[in-house]
């Protein structure tokens, strides 16, 4: 907040005062700030002189020479833009088949990737009855022999002795 923004008996710093005066001239102050500036202007001739100085030098900028541009500038600008637009169109036309090829290739790759992902997901997630059968095949092949032995502990002992190792390696 500037010093002028706060009610004060002391005069604000010249730089702060000028900043507020400029903003006042530009209509960029709030109504409250404008009122403070106006009351300062009404009471202090030095502030009025500062404001006048700022305003006069600002008005003097109207003296700057303004050389109007003729139709030639408009015409050359439009020609330049038309040429650029034609070049853009030509470039787009040239790029189109390449872009189309790139799009098809990208679509094909995406499709292949999606198919591979789908296969992997289905392979792991879908229960396959044949997989279990294959796993149990050695047991099924010798099921009749195993049934003749009533004691499971005896079977485990035979397994530890290596009786079934030959079968396992065969499978």
């Amino acid at each position, binding site marked *: 907040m500037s010093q002028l923004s706060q009610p004060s008996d002391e005069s604000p710093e010249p730089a702060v005062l*000028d900043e507020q005066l400029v903003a006042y001239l530009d209509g960029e102050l709030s109504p409250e700030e404008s009122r403070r500036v106006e009351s300062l202007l009404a009471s202090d001739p030095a502030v009025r002189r500062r404001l006048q100085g*700022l305003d006069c*030098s*600002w008005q003097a900028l109207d003296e700057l020479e303004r050389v*109007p541009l003729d139709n030639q500038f408009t015409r050359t600008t439009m020609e330049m*833009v038309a040429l*650029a637009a034609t070049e853009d169109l030509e470039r787009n036309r040239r790029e189109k088949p390449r872009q189309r090829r790139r799009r098809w290739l990208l679509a094909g790759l995406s499709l292949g990737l999606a198919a591979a992902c789908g296969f992997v997901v289905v392979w792991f997630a879908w229960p396959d009855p044949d997989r279990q059968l294959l796993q149990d095949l050695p047991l099924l092949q010798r099921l009749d022999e195993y049934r003749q032995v009533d004691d499971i502990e005896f079977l485990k002992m035979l397994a530890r002795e290596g009786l079934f190792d030959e079968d396992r390696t065969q499978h």
Partner: protein
Amino acid sequence: MLEVRDGSGAAFERLVQRFQSRLVMVLEHLVGNRDLAEDLAQEVFLRVYRARQTYVPGAKFSTWLFTIANNLAASALRSKGRHHEVHLDLQDTGPWKARPLEALLQASSGQMPARQFDKAEMRDMVHLALKSLSERQRLAVLLNKFEGMCYADIAEVMELTPKAVKSLLSRARMNLRDILQPYLEHGESPAAESS
């Protein structure tokens, strides 16, 4: 601008006609060269045309235009190595003869005696006063004075905060006042004052 966005060449031509003089004037004061200013203005219009699809309805066209112009002018000055900013801080400098403005004045018209208020001379004085500002101050002044832009719009063009613009414009106008007031009140040029 909406018609331009939809591809109307006639609308774009109207836009060029409406803004070309204003744009060239601002650019000329920024780069200090009429031909370069015209080239840059054409480049600005070309960029506007190419970017027309990105124009957002409701956005202020002049703000967009002068943002492009500001960027182009800055890069043109950088690339051509003619970025010699003449900063004149009147509060911190000594007598007139030590200030850059005197050099500008002497370069343009030699030792100027106190003389009658003259329109051409006045124009030269104002031109030199404007030239003595930093580039940022000058751009803020030009946008505020000739484009009637508020602080918020200037801030958008210059990528600053409105508060910074307020301070920038204040310093610029203090400098202008300090340079021009002696001339406006007594017809004294800074050079005459120092001699």
